[in-house]
């Protein structure tokens, strides 16, 4: 049903009203802008591939939430771990995966990250520390906490980020592992992307109490921020990562955000659960790319030709990736029963 208490874009993102003081230079902001744009354009092409029947299965688009993946992963090292979700293309790209191998995986092709056996909802890339996207909404919270446990036991200073959405707040595993992460001071950061909707249902219809209070109950440091503004996400995350890296324990970062598309590409008739006005308001007023571009322009860190040049580059990379994947072969049929056991 259409939720009567649907907050507007402003009221749901007021938790942090100003960017933290940071020493990020122009090159870093430009890189983050480029990363966010790459995710946006990647998802545009996923949409096209899907709606032209070139991509099988399901496609859950990340568009609108780019500042979280990029802000969070920019604060991580390559050897830090992430776990991701069914809406995971953004996390995967932001952690450093390459566009062509990702598209190949999305199309079930042999050169894909998982030889085409995982698909959109299960991309994993151990070279960039991505332990995999997961199609059980809180399913990866155990894996992420286990990876953090592992780093601590092995004596490394790796940090693990566990991405999940508001839908995962309904599954008990999250609370079991947050309890242990806090007890044992594990270097894990739970990043909750609250895009307001558990599939087709507003989170306020499914989520009692205050979200942050759930993590605070375990004695976990909790912050709630505007997930649309990378100038808030990135420095907040830097602080939480440093803290975790130095043995000060887990954190819970609640990022308020918005999913531009439906739950998946096929979710087109959405009026019964959310209003067109709401979608338009987020896109026009709270778009993470526009917010960063406007601020950089105001600071004279960005001009129109640079924006154009970045977009040109990113589009070329993505179009080449799509072409690579479309031309790539499917796996040999005798692959079907390989990799069941190591």
């Amino acid at each position, binding site marked *: 049903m259409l939720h009567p208490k649907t907050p507007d874009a402003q009221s749901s993102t007021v938790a942090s009203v100003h960017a933290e003081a940071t020493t990020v230079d122009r090159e870093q902001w430009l890189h983050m802008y480029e990363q966010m744009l790459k995710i946006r354009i990647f998802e545009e092409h996923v949409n096209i591939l899907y709606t032209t029947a070139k991509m099988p299965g399901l496609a859950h688009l990340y568009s609108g939430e780019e500042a979280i993946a990029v802000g969070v992963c920019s604060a991580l090292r390559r050897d830090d*771990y992430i*776990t991701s979700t069914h809406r995971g293309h953004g996390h995967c790209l932001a952690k450093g995966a390459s566009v062509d191998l990702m598209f190949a995986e999305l199309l079930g092709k042999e050169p*894909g*990250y*998982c*030889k*085409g*056996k*995982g698909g959109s909802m*299960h991309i*994993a*890339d*151990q070279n960039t520390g991505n*332990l*995999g996207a*997961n199609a*059980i909404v809180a*399913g*990866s*919270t*155990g*894996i*992420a*906490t*286990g*990876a*953090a*446990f*592992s*780093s601590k*036991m*092995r004596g490394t200073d790796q940090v*693990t980020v566990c991405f999940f959405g508001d839908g995962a707040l309904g599954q*008990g*595993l999250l609370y*079991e*592992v947050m*309890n*242990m992460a806090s*007890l044992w001071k594990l270097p894990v950061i739970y990043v909750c992307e609250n895009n307001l909707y558990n599939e087709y249902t507003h989170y306020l219809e499914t989520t009692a109490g205050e979200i942050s209070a759930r993590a605070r109950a375990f004695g976990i440091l909790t912050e709630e921020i505007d997930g649309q503004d990378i100038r808030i996400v990135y420095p907040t995350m830097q602080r939480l990562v440093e803290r975790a890296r130095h043995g000060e324990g887990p954190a819970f970062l609640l990022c308020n955000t918005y999913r531009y598309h439906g739950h998946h590409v096929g979710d087109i008739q959405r009026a019964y659960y959310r209003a067109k006005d709401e979608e338009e308001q987020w896109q026009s007023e709270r778009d993470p790319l526009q917010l960063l571009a406007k601020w950089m322009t105001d600071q004279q860190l960005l001009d129109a030709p640079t924006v154009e040049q970045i977009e040109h580059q990113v589009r070329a990379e993505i179009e080449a990736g799509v072409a690579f994947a479309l031309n790539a072969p499917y796996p040999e049929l005798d692959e079907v*029963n*390989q*990799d*069941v*056991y*190591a």
Partner: protein
Amino acid sequence: MFMPNTVAEQKPREGVRIITFGQAIREALAEEMRRDPSIFIMGEDVAEAGTPFKVLSGLVEEFGTARVIDSPISEAGITGIGVGSAMTGLRPIIDIMFGDFLGIAMDQLFNQAAKVHYMSGGKLKVPLLLRTTLGATRRTAAQHSQSLHAWVSHIPGLKVVLPSTPYDAKGLLKTAIRDDNPVVFFEDKMMYQLKGPVPEGDYTIPFGVADIKRIGTDITIVATSSMVQIALAAADILAQSGISAEIVDPRTTVPLDTATLIASAKKTSRALVVDEGYEQYGITAEIASVIADGAFYYLDAPVKRIGAMNVPVPFSPPLEDMTVPTAISVAKVAQTLCGRV
């Protein structure tokens, strides 16, 4: 399907003593933990308490609380932590006190642990060992008495081990710890005090190799875990009426040594499968099907199977005793198959 044994059989070199099933388990764990610092144990009451069955007593004293870790009562959570730590360089041993609690951990086991290697195209591995228990007649009623190994045997990506003697327990547990896949290891909680010969020091038993516990000529009785001793007792009863029973213990249900099962049934021409899991849709059905397919032209009778009665395990002792196969009930079916009734 290619399912390599990551550990080849390794014969014992040192002396043999008589110890209990529980001691054999503890010895395997201690020896492996001395050998490999990436192994740790996590579970409810595994440290100072040594579990309610006292199987782990002494381990925390040797290896410390950093490697023998008391956890909250969070079966899903600790299994998840096991999966994630296994994916990132450790060899976790997760202790699920009663097999009945597997349901709580199930998503982490069958959707995560079992599928990570395949879904990642073979890039990620999950060398996770989950130890748990099975078996009724302990008077602990419906939620602490089930034998649920069929559940996990159903899922590709998991290996499932059912030791029936102290010797097998030690050798199979070492193989399970060294395997690069998720393994579920079921211990019959009524068998912890069972004594038998166990070599000192290192030896391993490969998965997928059945063991003939008693050689016979008239009927093959395939028995698992808790039912091996029952089947051996049944064989004694049968011998009195001149029936020579061969007892075959598959030792692992995944991988399953189909060749040995079929060869034994071909030799004896009759087969009975006994297991303590619920009979309906149980592993007895799978094994009976393997034998019926593989030995059809050699069989003189239909393959029969006996599992636990299809009821929740009752508390009341006389009722509970009715639900599990006994030496007498097994012998009776075997006699019927052999045309002696």
